[in-house]
Structure formats: C-alpha cells, structure tokens
C-alpha cells in the first residue's frame, strides 16, 4: 500500500462520512458545515488526479461561493425550521432503499466497464493548464461551451436577483 493509496483512502472516507452527515444531520447549519468538509475532500481528490486548477476552482467556487450561499439561505429561512419537527420525510427508509438499489445498479454497471481496472495513463509532457486555457478560447475547440457558460451565468445572476426581490415595490420603500 503506497502513500498515495493511504491518502486516497483517508480522504475518501472523510468525504463519504461528511456526505452522510450532510444528509443525516438534524441541524441544517451543521449539514452545511459538513458539506464544506465533503467539498474540501473532493478538492483533495482533484489534486490526487493531477487536476490542480480544478482543485483551486473547487475551493473558490464550491467552498467559497456555493457553500456560503447555502449557509446564508439556511440563516435567512430560519424562523419556521427552528430545529423542531422532523427533518426527514416519514418515508426516509424508502429513500434509503432507492439509494441502495441505485448504488447496486451503478456498481453492476461500472464493474462491466472495460476500463474498470485501468491504471493511471502517462501525463502528456505539455502543461495541461496551458492547454485548458487555450482550448477555452480556441474557435475550433471549446469556445462555444465557454461562451454559453458565460451567458448562462449572466442569466442566472439576473434571474436570481429578479426572483429573490421582494414581491411588491413598496415593501422596500419604493426601491
């Protein structure tokens, strides 16, 4: 067992345990904090996979933006969920059953993959980050998805502001 394998196993275990706490924790703020642990574990796994830029993006976008947004949403919608009442559906065992069945199906699928036991391929000599950067602005490669993503983000920005605004204008003093 090499050092990398031990690092993978420890990180994977932490990620999974934090994920279980995200879905099982009775307090939603705790669940959001566990979500940060789980996302950080995935960032470490990205580093193990030699995707350093994606690991940084994971920390900046997921931990820095999405997790904070979730915590804000939990705090803004606190009055009714004042840690009373059940946090899970009464049929949660059905959800557990479906998740287990789905895992069984996924396992049966991925064990049939020809690449299931593949070991790491050699990285190309060229820097993959430079390649990633140029491919995003190359008309013949990934310029179109890049531009579509930017328009999507703009639309989401405007949409989120329009949706979250108070219903009538005089609630905000005619703003």
């Amino acid at each position: 067992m090499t050092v990398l394998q031990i690092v993978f196993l420890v990180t994977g275990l932490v990620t999974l345990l934090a994920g279980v706490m995200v879905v099982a924790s009775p307090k939603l703020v705790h669940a959001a904090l566990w979500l940060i642990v789980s996302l950080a574990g995935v960032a470490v796994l990205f580093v193990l996979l030699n995707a350093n830029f994606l690991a940084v993006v994971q920390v900046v976008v997921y931990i820095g933006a999405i997790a904070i947004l979730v915590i804000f949403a939990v705090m803004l919608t606190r009055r009714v969920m004042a840690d009373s009442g059940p946090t899970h559906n009464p049929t949660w065992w059905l959800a557990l059953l479906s998740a287990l069945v789905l895992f069984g199906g996924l396992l049966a699928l991925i064990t049939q993959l020809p690449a299931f036991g593949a070991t790491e391929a050699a990285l190309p000599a060229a820097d993959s980050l430079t390649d990633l950067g140029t491919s995003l602005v190359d008309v013949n490669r990934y310029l179109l998805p890049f531009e579509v993503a930017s328009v999507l983000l703009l639309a989401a920005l405007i949409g989120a502001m329009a949706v979250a605004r108070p219903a009538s204008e005089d609630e905000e003093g005619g703003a």
Partner: protein
Amino acid sequence: MIPLSWYLILSALLFCIGVFGVLARRNAVGILMGIELMLNAVNLNLVAFWRYLTPGMIGGQVFTLIVFAVAASEAAVGLALIISIYRRRSTVVADEINLMKW
C-alpha cells in the same frame, strides 16, 4: 498506484448519498445540498476518466468546468427561489409548498 475502480466506487457512493439526501430531506435547502453532493460525484467521475483514459485530451476538464458553472447558477437560482417562497409563504418545507400540487 490507485486503480480507476476506487474513484468510480467512491463517486458512486457519493452520488447515492446525494440521492438519499434529495429524497429524504424535508427542507428545500437540504434538498439543494443533496444536489450539490451529486454534482460533485459527477465531477469526480469526469476528472477520474480524464486522468486515467484520455489525459492528452483536455475535454474532460472543460466538461468539469462547465458543470461548475451550471452548479453555481443552479445554486444561485435555487436559493433565490427558496428565499422568495419563504418570504411569501413562511415555509421552506417541500411538502408544504403545495400551491401547484394536486
């Protein structure tokens, strides 16, 4: 060396945890957290396939970046919807948001 199968099994487990969260949580914010876990599992899968099968093609990383962008917009719009619903109906429990349910 870590075989590809470890990553695939880990991301399958993470995805199923997310599915359980989406199905079992009553709070809409909790459901969104489950969706984030599922998207992370998908990202892990994409990057693992890129690293093990086609490290010369950058497409796997570009795909992951697009998923990041979609996840960010989904979280922003979803949480804005939840806050808007909370403001009008004073609830974030998915069962009680039943205006358009039969």
